[in-house]
């Protein structure tokens, strides 16, 4: 059975390819993204309230440390094999170093559908992984060239909509606990999947609009956008296994490592690395990696995690 949210995405792609006049109004898209970010934050916060956050420090440190390999890998692969300039390779590194919240949401909904348990603190990793990879990518893009205005960039990222809402939701969920949030849970948790479906319809439309750009960029970008996430996903599975996570946790960590940002990173990178061509990174992250992850990647990371557990035990 197909997951309806993926079918909504395909509907969007089809409407875009057929040049339908279907358009999700910008205001609705903005509203839906606010809802999704808050809901994911709240959900994570409620789960986190059942843990002692101080136990997470070691695990978070390792997850962050391993995640630094991703922008480094993306930078050198795209520079050496793809022949991209330092700025473009750095921009790709920043996009792949950061994470995609919607990909995370799709992975969560798949695990819920399959009744696979997940460590409640995975949302904390979602928040933590959003920033360092992005900064490392910008550093790689700027290394040895003109100086970047780091203060401005860090302010831009920290006060950006996505981090503000995720972190805000996480805190509200954590401080309120399960009973406190119960009064608003019908809106945020009950309607979550339906809202995600409409959001993916819009994502499908936007992805269809990138097809011409992907064709222009050539085969390397398609190969990079599919093979690189698979490598990062495998890295996530191994790291999750090493940290003793459950199958669900390993799958989600793999999804976080494999996903590429297309909301927070493009805005920050555009201002920090203006010489990079924004179309390249967004065509890769939104046009190739996002559809790959939600259709093939996430089920693959789940199978990998299950095998990893079976083989080792």
């Amino acid at each position, binding site marked *: 059975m197909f997951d309806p949210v993926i079918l909504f995405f395909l509907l969007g792609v089809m409407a875009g390819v057929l040049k339908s006049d279907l358009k999700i109004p*910008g205001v609705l898209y903005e509203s839906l993204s606010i809802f999704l970010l808050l809901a994911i934050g709240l959900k994570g916060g409620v789960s986190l309230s059942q843990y002692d956050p101080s136990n997470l420090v070691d695990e978070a440190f390792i997850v962050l440390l391993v995640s630094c390999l991703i922008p480094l890998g993306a930078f050198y692969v795209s520079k050496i094999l793809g022949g991209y300039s330092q700025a473009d390779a750095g921009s790709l590194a920043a996009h792949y170093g950061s994470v995609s919240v919607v990909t995370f949401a799709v992975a969560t909904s798949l695990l819920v559908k399959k009744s696979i348990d997940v460590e409640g603190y995975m949302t904390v990793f979602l928040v933590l992984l959003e920033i360092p990879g992005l900064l490392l990518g910008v550093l790689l893009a700027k290394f040895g060239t003109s100086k970047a205005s780091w203060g401005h960039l860090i302010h831009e990222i920290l006060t950006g909509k996505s981090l503000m809402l995720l972190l805000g939701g996480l805190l509200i969920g954590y401080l309120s606990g399960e009973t406190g949030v119960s009064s608003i849970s019908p809106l945020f948790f009950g309607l979550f999947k339906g809202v995600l479906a409409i959001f993916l319809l819009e994502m499908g*439309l936007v992805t269809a*609009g990138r097809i011409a750009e992907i064709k222009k960029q050539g085969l390397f970008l398609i190969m990079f956008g599919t093979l690189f996430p698979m490598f990062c996903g495998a890295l996530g599975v191994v790291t999750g296994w090493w940290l003793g996570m459950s199958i669900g946790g390993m799958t989600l960590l793999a999804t976080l490592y494999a996903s590429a940002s297309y909301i927070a990173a493009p805005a920050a990178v555009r201002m920090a690395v*203006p*010489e990079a061509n924004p179309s390249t990174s967004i065509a890769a992250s939104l046009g190739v990696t996002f559809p790959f992850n939600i259709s093939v990647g996430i089920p693959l990371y789940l199978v990998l995690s299950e095998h990893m557990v079976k083989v080792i035990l």
Partner: protein
Amino acid sequence: MTQRLVTRKLLTIICEAGLEKELTNCIGAAGASGYTVSDARGKGAHGLRDASWSDNANIRIEVLCDELVATALLDKVLNDYYQNYTLVTFVSDVGVLRPFKFTKPAAL
């Protein structure tokens, strides 16, 4: 009625939406007393800018000012932004009422 109109410059910048904060700061720093920002869509050298995603959304910034401020802003845009960003800038003469609102105050 038209006899009461005084000529000022209307500087229009059509650019990527991400530049809003930086450009409006420049406008304030150059001495303009205000500006108007609106969302814009269209097609040009960089293809269709249909606002379907944040990276292809445009804005239109309009500034009513005197020639001195308009020239300073044009120089700033030319030197700092034209190389790497998508921008169209043009200046036209317009008639305004209350011209003192659109004149840079003399330095003390």
